[in-house]
C-alpha cells in the first residue's frame, strides 16, 4: 500500500498520537531553543562581573633594571571580570604596604571588590590586610600550595 493512498483521517490521527507522545520532548526543545535565543540576544558577558574578583601579586622586576636606588618590585592588581590592570612600582617588598595600595586602587575604581585572591607571601598574610578585608567585607582567597605535588606550585 502506497503511503499517499492512506486515508487522510487515519494519517492525521497517527501523527496526532505521535505529537502527543512527544509533548514532553517538544516542551523541552522549545525551552532549550528559547534559552539559546535568549543567550544569543544577550551581550557577551564575562564569567565574573567587573570589580568583584581581584587578583593581587608582587613581582620582582630586577631583570628590567637593577640599581640600588631604583624600584625593584611592582605590585600588580588584576580585575578578573574587567581585565583592568593596575601596577604600582615599589623600591622594596616592604615599602608601602599592600593595604595602602589596595586602598588607592579602590579609591580610583570607586567600588570595593568581593573576592581578593592572593598568594601566601608575608606581605599579603599580615594582620593588617586581614583587618582591612574584615572591615570592608572582602573574602580573602589565599592560594595554598598542595604539599608533595610539584605542579601545584
Amino acid at each position: 500500500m502506497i503511503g499517499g493512498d492512506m486515508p487522510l483521517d487515519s494519517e492525521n490521527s497517527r501523527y496526532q498520537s505521535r505529537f502527543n507522545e512527544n509533548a514532553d520532548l517538544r516542551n523541552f526543545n522549545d525551552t532549550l531553543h528559547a534559552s539559546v535565543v535568549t543567550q544569543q540576544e544577550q551581550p557577551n558577558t564575562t564569567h565574573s562581573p567587573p570589580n568583584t574578583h581581584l587578583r593581587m601579586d608582587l613581582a620582582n622586576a630586577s631583570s628590567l633594571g637593577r640599581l640600588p636606588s631604583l624600584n625593584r618590585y611592582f605590585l600588580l592588581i588584576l580585575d578578573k571580570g574587567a581585565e583592568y590592570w593596575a601596577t604600582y612600582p615599589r623600591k622594596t617588598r616592604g615599602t608601602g604596604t599592600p593595604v595602602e595600595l589596595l586602598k588607592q586602587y579602590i579609591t580610583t575604581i570607586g567600588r570595593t571588590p568581593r573576592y581578593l585572591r592572593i598568594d601566601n607571601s608575608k606581605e599579603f598574610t599580615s594582620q593588617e590586610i586581614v583587618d582591612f578585608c574584615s572591615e570592608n567585607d572582602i573574602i580573602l582567597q589565599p592560594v595554598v600550595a598542595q604539599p608533595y605535588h610539584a605542579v601545584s606550585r
Partner: protein
Amino acid sequence: MTSFCNLWSHNHTMQCRVEGTIGSSKQHSRVALVCANAPTRFWPDATVDFTCKKNTQAKRDELGDLSTANNCMQRAFAGAYKTVAITFGSRVTGYLAREYPLVKNGSFGEGFVEGIYLRANHDTPCIRMYCITSGSELLIQDLKSYPDEFPFRDPSCLLRYTPVI
C-alpha cells in the same frame, strides 16, 4: 567578619591570571625600553605606560559600549588617546607655564621643554615626560609628540644641544 577561603592549588592555574599578567607586563616594558634605547631606570614608567595603554584600548562590544576596563578608569580621561597613544620614549615637546619655577625670565623661550614621553598621568589630562635639559620629570599638558623620533636612539632629532643624555 572575614571569610577565609583557602584554595588548594590542585593545579598550577589558580594564580595563572596574575602570573601571566606579570609576565606580559615585563615583556612589553622590556621591549619598549629596547625599542626606545632608553636606560633601564625608566622601567617603572614603561610598565605603568604599558598598563595604561592596555586599559585604554577601546574594545567595543556588540552593543557598541566600551569595555568594562574603560569603565574602571577615570570617566573624564577614559580613552584620552591624545595623552595615551604616544610611543614610549619618543620625542615630545611642550611649554611650561610662565609661573613654573623653571621659567626664570618669564620669556617664551625659557618655557620650551623637550624630552621623551614616559606615560600618561592617571589623574589629570597630562603626560609625564623626562626633560633632557634639566634631567627631571615634568608634567606637561600642552604637548606635541613626534612618534618616529627617539632621542636616546638618535640625539640629532633634538632641537637643543644636549651634551650628555
